[in-house]
């Protein structure tokens, strides 16, 4: 979750003022910005081509900029709290993808996404405008789907030896 002042700067991040994520565990080659959540927080209905995720009070860290986050210095981050509700609604027919080089197969539906979110970092409080008709969320890319990767790519349930 990135917050910028004035304009986006994805080259040098000079205008970025907040970067909220749950960290890399372990740093730097572990799970990247991933957190476990309750099963009920994510709903998927592929027959309706829709999905949603709701997060209330997710605790993460503000690294202030993406470069700071990727430096991995925990002292450069401060605690933050995030509330988020994102909804996907499919807009196209499903497409199949098979990517043997990454051991992945899946069927995906390209979608539109709408998201409401707010965050608190110390005295900083931010609330996104999503849902306002005069200031809509812009979807750069969105999809939902069903996939298998890794050991499930070939249909194996377990590795015999690791």
């Amino acid at each position, binding site marked *: *979750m*990135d*917050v*910028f002042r*004035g*304009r*986006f700067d*994805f080259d040098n991040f000079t205008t970025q003022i907040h970067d*909220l994520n749950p960290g890399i*565990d372990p740093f730097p*080659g*572990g*799970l*990247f*910005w*991933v*957190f*476990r959540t309750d*099963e009920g*927080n*994510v*709903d*998927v209905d*592929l*027959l309706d081509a829709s*999905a949603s*995720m709701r*997060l209330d009070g*997710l605790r*993460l860290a503000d690294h202030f900029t993406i470069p700071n986050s990727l430096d991995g210095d925990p002292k450069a981050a401060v605690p933050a709290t995030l509330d*988020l509700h*994102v909804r*996907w609604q499919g807009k196209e027919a499903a497409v199949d*993808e098979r990517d043997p080089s*990454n*051991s992945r197969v899946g069927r*995906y*539906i*390209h979608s539109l*996404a709408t*998201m409401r979110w707010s965050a608190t970092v110390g005295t900083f*409080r*931010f609330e*996104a*405008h999503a849902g306002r008709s005069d200031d809509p*969320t812009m*979807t*750069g*890319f*969105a*999809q*939902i*789907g*069903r*996939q298998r*990767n890794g*050991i*499930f790519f070939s249909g194996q349930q*377990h*590795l015999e030896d690791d």
Partner: protein
Amino acid sequence: MAGSSSGQLGPLTARADKVLAKPRPIPGVLAVNGKPTPFHVFLPGAGSEPSLITDLDGFVGVTEVMGKGTDQDGNTLLWDADVRFMKGLYRGVDNEVHRGTFGFV
């Protein structure tokens, strides 16, 4: 496409542990200017691996969205987010198959 709402993913069975093992990161890494980084993530886009975890048999969602918002003083700020979920069966670091739900922000 098979329609499922909350994790009926087929014949595979999963452990019902209270404490679930961590999943494993995808093996691929992000490349910047053609050089690999240590980070196990791909940018969102058509044809790109949306999951952050490997050995997954389940549902995924990914979106990159942007917009505006307001801080506590009424200042208008810009935001951008890459948000994802992964839900289903996964092989944990304990080599057992578990059922789990994960997010990415």
